[in-house]
């Protein structure tokens, strides 16, 4: 008999996420990996500012809530203070790719031995659906009501591609959680990102293409389809860097 249990590393509380939001899936994947690796007792997570600001209530390990965008710097402090701990950050696109760009780039450049779970849903969710650094060209948001005009506000930031140009990082992969197959791949990538840290290999970032049905103005089902139709063509899935496997730059 197969019993489908809640991971131990996930607190037994209801989450505040909207119906159809994929944060719940990613939280669960992270918790499953922590359980499977047996690292719950030595793991410290860092929550961002954004929709997942209250992640500290959902993970059962020690947690720190960081200032907006500063999670990689806080994680750097935590890891340097206690190198035997396993430190991960969980950040959205506004947090990681806009206000915290410097902290992201430089923690990658230092090959800081931390794990970053990066949720890219192309929008600011918590504040009600404003244009994100990762919003697609033409995407309608509260602050791009006529669609993202690239001649006015530029192009989306492709985090994995950008960081793959640095010598520092160990591992960069982009995954999605809009289908069973993609969720399974996402878990593999998240597991590898934690295993890398345990092995002392360094900076590992998994970008997770996620949905925001509420702020995209779509049903949950349509939002998952929109990931396939619009998001993945702009943000191709794959390994962007895996130094141990001698993979540098490029996707696939």
């Amino acid at each position: 008999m197969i019993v489908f249990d809640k991971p131990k590393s996930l607190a037994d509380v209801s989450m505040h996420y909207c119906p159809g939001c994929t944060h719940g899936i990613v939280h669960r994947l992270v918790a499953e990996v922590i359980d499977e690796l047996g690292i719950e007792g030595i793991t410290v997570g860092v929550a961002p500012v954004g929709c997942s600001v209250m992640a500290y209530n959902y993970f059962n390990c020690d947690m720190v809530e960081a200032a907006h965008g500063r999670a990689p710097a806080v994680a750097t402090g935590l890891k340097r203070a206690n190198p035997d701990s396993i430190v991960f950050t969980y950040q959205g696109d506004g947090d990681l790719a806009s206000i915290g760009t410097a902290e992201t780039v430089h923690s990658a450049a230092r090959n800081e031995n931390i794990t970053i779970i990066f949720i890219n849903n192309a929008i600011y969710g918590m504040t009600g659906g404003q244009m994100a650094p990762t919003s697609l060209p033409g995407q309608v948001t509260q602050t791009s009501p006529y669609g993202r005009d690239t001649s006015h506000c530029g192009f989306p930031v492709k985090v994995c591609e950008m960081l793959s140009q640095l010598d520092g990082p160990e591992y960069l992969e982009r995954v999605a959680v809009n289908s069973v197959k993609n969720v399974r791949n996402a878990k593999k990538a998240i597991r590898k990102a934690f295993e890398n840290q345990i092995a002392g290999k360094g900076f590992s970032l998994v970008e997770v293409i996620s949905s925001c049905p509420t702020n995209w103005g779509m049903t949950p089902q349509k939002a998952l389809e929109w990931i396939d139709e619009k998001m993945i063509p702009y943000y191709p899935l794959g390994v962007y860097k895996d130094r141990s496997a001698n993979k540098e730059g490029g996707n696939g």
Partner: protein
Amino acid sequence: MTDKVLMKGNEALAEAAIMAGCRHYFGYPITPQTEVAAYLAKRMPKIGGTFLQAESEIAAINMVYGVAAAGLRVLTSSSSPGIALKSEGLSYLAGADLPAVIINVQRGGPGLGGIQPSQSDYFQATKAGGHGDFRMIVLAPNSVQEMADLTVKAFDLADQYRMTAMILADGTMGQMMEPVSLNYGEPKKIEKPWAVTGTKCLRKHNVVNSLFLVPDELEQFNFARYERYKQIEENEVMYEEYMMDDAEICIVAFGIAARVSKNAISEARKQGIKVGMIRPITLWPFPKAPMLKAADKVKEFICVEMSMGQMIEDVELAVRCKKPVTLCNRVGGMIPSPEQVLASIVEASKKGE
């Protein structure tokens, strides 16, 4: 006194931090605090510590936040514009009740200002370290010895009260060399059961956080924090009284301005003017009581400071405007001369004659 060594203020401070058990330093280059970073860059790797040059002041203070959350003693240093960048982090440290020590080797402002000594970050340090209701303990050294001693004190106070403590120095204090004696014994150990060191699966998970969306709850945290601040105001005020027994004029000055004022006081005393000084060592908590007491005896207070008049507001409040408080100042990186301070003393002595 064979144990005395000749050191720069910035270096004595850095060595004292190590003696206080600090093994983690994060900073970003800025004049005139560079020696703190340079010294620790050499020392930390040799004693198993961490020196890390951050990508920005903002990153540095958030690295500090991480180490503090893990329960270890941690230091950052900067100079005025850099401290402004750290103010976000200072507020978060306060909101999460995390201890840390911050050094501000002040330079002239506003804006990029200059690189010469200044005391114009008094407001920033004592009133406006960042957004929200919070305080920092602010210590103002006036010698290389105090740069070191107050740094050790800052670590102890920060841990004891779970808050940030700032050393408010200036370029002169940082750069000048004096003989100092560094003997502090074993660093104080304060239990930190709230630290995020991993649950070891033996306890409920710890959360270091400054977000409280329920107003009642946030109010209670603020009340509790200010109860702690009240204890600090009762127990931790430090100041030096100099020639105040018979003084009719009272100078109030801190840091290098107090050193200059001492020279002026000696000269004035030679001329028969009864002048003394109250030198605040803690700028917060501010030594209000001795000033109020002095207000009954002296006819005038002279606030000597290297700003357009910032501490003077606290002096006026402390003496409840019972006596006039005048300002003797230089700004922009200029230091008042003993002659300028003497002239202010002579002028005050002639009033009412």
